[in-house]
């Protein structure tokens, strides 16, 4: 076995030192009825790299990846170009094979990177502080709901109908099994909802997504004021972080907590994970945040260095009183995010965002010219068209031609019959004129 360094002679000599007859006798505490006498039956035996690679490649070849198709899929995961440098750097063993930086003297690489990550997330979201990452955007939203309950001492959250269907499902699951409550506003495909009237003295937070799941853009300032007037928090979800290169930040519109899916920067689609959750808030709520935080300090020689800090909020110290049970988060995906954003920089991100918007506008214009109706007034790189017939069936049919036309709204909101005809279409910098032409041809 290529990953096991002991020779039989090594094992024999080590057993002699221990004073045990065989390896199996070290398992003496295992009850006999559960102690297997040999490898489990019904599973394959060890295989060479050649064989394993062949098997995995065969599985991969049964999929039609987005790069082998025309793809307009979005809906919370976006196909972007990841610069070659990103994947090279995250595969450096010192990043890839290191643990959580609990020993700061020999983890300054990861720690400094996390400090840079937190700073960039704060800047992007327009917030004062950010944590060192969550699993993904969807679970970050669930944590935001819990945090809003802790901060306000209230237990009811109002969830916009523009929030991603999976995120709404997760929040509903959490509410179902805890003392938290959610009020799920009706699915808001047409961007007509007004949540202000629903906010009351029991409202812990109002949670909205911008751009919404259907691509609509909102100025949230008024909603933020309404929340503030009632002592509720405004939680803003961003599932496409590239949009933050072009749109006013949630912080500038008055958000109290911002959660985002960071996949778009540095991380491949990978069939849905692992991704990276961003979590940012106001400084005054810092100690109520979930997850790890990296902070700046000095060493014994007075030199600047970084450590994990404020860890008394976390499970390993607070145990049942922790702000969250999260432990492992998304370190390597956060690194990919940070490197991609470092390469882009201020102007690069703005250009990328502009390019995404332009491609989406081109796509929308072409579809409109072909007679389709785009329902959005404003959008960033994702918008919704009304096909006038069920979208899912058409999407399935087009997939046979290797055209991934978009996400049928019914996939995210199966209970909302009124969205059955809606198709959510995303364009990115990877969208070509030929892709747009083909989409218009098959949808017209």
């Amino acid at each position, binding site marked *: 076995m290529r990953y096991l360094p002991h020779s039989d002679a090594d094992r024999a000599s080590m057993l002699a030192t221990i004073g045990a007859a065989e390896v199996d006798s070290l398992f003496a505490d295992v009850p006999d009825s559960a102690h297997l006498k040999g490898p*489990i039956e019904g599973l394959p035996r060890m295989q060479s790299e050649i064989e394993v690679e062949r098997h995995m490649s065969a599985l991969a070849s049964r999929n039609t990846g987005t*790069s082998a198709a025309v793809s307009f899929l979005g809906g919370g995961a976006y196909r972007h170009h990841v610069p070659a440098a990103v994947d090279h750097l995250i595969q450096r063993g010192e990043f890839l094979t290191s643990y959580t930086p609990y020993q700061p003297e020999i*983890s300054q690489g990861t720690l400094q990177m996390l400090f840079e990550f937190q700073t960039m997330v704060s800047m992007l979201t327009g917030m004062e502080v950010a944590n060192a990452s969550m699993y993904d955007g969807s*679970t970050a939203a669930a944590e935001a709901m819990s945090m809003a309950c802790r901060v306000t001492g209230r237990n009811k959250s109002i969830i916009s109908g523009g929030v991603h269907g999976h995120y709404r499902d997760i929040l509903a699951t959490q509410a179902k099994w805890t003392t938290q409550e959610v009020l799920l506003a009706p699915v808001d495909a047409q961007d007509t909802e007004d949540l202000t009237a629903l906010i009351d003295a029991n409202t812990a937070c109002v949670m909205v997504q911008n751009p919404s799941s259907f691509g609509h853009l909102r100025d949230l300032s008024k909603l933020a004021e309404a929340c503030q007037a009632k002592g509720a928090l405004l939680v803003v979800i961003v599932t496409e972080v590239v949009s933050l290169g072009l749109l006013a930040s949630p912080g500038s519109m008055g958000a109290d907590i911002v959660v985002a899916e960071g996949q778009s920067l540095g991380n491949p689609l990978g069939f849905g994970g692992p991704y990276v959750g961003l979590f940012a808030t106001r400084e005054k709520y810092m100690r109520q945040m979930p997850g790890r935080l*990296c902070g700046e300090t000095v060493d014994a020689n007075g030199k*600047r260095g970084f450590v994990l800090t404020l860890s008394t909020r976390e499970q390993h110290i607070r145990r049942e009183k922790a702000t969250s049970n999260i432990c492992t988060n998304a370190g390597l995906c956060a690194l990919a995010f940070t490197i991609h954003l470092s390469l882009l920089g201020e102007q690069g991100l703005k250009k990328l965002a502009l390019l995404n918007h332009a491609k989406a506008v081109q796509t929308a214009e072409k579809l409109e010219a072909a007679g389709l109706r785009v329902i959005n007034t404003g959008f960033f790189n994702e918008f919704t068209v009304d096909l006038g017939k069920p979208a899912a069936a058409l999407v399935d049919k087009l997939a046979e031609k290797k055209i991934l036309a978009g996400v049928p709204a019914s996939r995210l909101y199966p209970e909302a019959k009124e969205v059955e005809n809606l198709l959510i279409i995303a364009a990115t910098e990877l969208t070509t004129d030929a892709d747009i032409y083909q989409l218009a041809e098959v949808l017209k």
Partner: protein
Amino acid sequence: MSMNTQGRPTAPDLKVANVNDLPETVLGHKGLVFEEKLLFEQSSPGTCGVDLPLAPMVKSRLHVLKARESIGLPELAEPQVIRHYTRLSQKNYAIDTGLYPLGSCTMKHNPRLNEKMTRLAGLADLHPLQPASTTQGALQLIHELADWLMKLTGMPAVAMSPAAGAHGEYCGMLAIKAAIADKGEAKTRTKVIVPESAHGTNPATAASLGFTVVPVKAEADGRVRAEAVKAVLGPDVAAIMLTNPNTCGLFERDIIDIAMAVRAAGAYFYCDGANFNAIVGRVRPADLGVDCMHINLHKTFSTPHGGGGPGAGPVVLSERLAPYAPVPFVVKTGETLRLIEQTTEKEAAKSIGRLKGFHGQMGMFIRALTYCLSHGADGLWQASGDAVLNANYIASQLKTIMSQPYAGYCMHEALFDDTFLKDTGVTTLDFAKAMIDEGYHPMTMYFPLVVHGAFLIEPTESESKQAIDDFIKVMISLAKRARAGEADHFAAAPRFTPRARLDETRAARQPVLRWQASTLSKSGG
């Protein structure tokens, strides 16, 4: 007040620590050890590390929103970015550079074939919301890994979507909560039994779901007795959360009796699978009476820790918990695979609901399946055997010079306490920092909490005999130096690292969580 402390210093003692007597250099670099400023301090406005095609001229359709304000991101070209992160990487200890004996963390070798497989076209570029007809290979891959996990544990079902161990715990405890509610006992079964030696995520998870945590003590041999569990079992108990092998590195001898008692009392047995690496392929948790166990793919199945994630925490479930598995899950009918994504579908009628966006940590599934296929059932048998052999080999040679709280064979990790440091003036923390100077990442320390000044050493199966012999040599030498009164040597450690001991007190008293143009961050090293 509740006194929860092991009293270790968190600010360096300046009198003894400042012994870094290497001469200063102009820029602070020391040969191959580079000082590296923050990225924000290296910005050269007007440069960019990515060239993009020009955006076509279109009429903006952003409409309502005001414009983006200045973000503040630094601007650098690709060479600067690559050098920056390469230099940062060189300040990290890693499995690739040395033995990483972190107990209960299973820092084993991360095969590079795993990495290569995740990057295959057809996997890396697969969108989670594609029609199922275009993702049959991916669904088959999830199905195959699920089959491995079920066969290795003997359990009939597995929930694949949890993102990490703690998330898996949340999933498993929710399934238990749902099963209890289904029986009409939601109001009465409100307690969860958790041994004092448990990992902090256990009580945190139980509490987050509204359960009251009932602690149970271990006996003098570091194990929980069935009698102790029976004494707290009753109609008000929902579950027990037990780690096996436990956090002291010991197999719970009474585990089958405990499981039977728990079941007889109408409660459920949650097993924390963090230490599954000791028994994988040799003991099936189903044969121990477990109802539910999360598996850390980033521990037992070699997916990289990546400086703190991502992980993956699939949860295997017994027959009586299987109906409550979260969505989504894969169903295979004939040769066709489907994803059940909604609780409105009949297969998911009793499901607890959704816990994560999309379908789980696919990239980790690919790595874990690659690992399973590479090892095979026979390779896994050998791997867990070697992991336990290595830990016992270390224990057998260190037990005479260090102090062992519990006698007898351990499983995959060897536990020591700080009795051997009594009156030396050296703490477990000092000892750990001295290990750093000797080229080792310290073991897990001060955990489990039930042992004073704990040293929890998990070598894993990835280390050669020679590597382990070197490690033992270092540990013996350090133990002797501590006992010989060389406390200053330990207090001054680490000396050979990019930074000396860091002032954690200051970091917590005056938190600085981000760079700002005007803070002390600007002063540099």
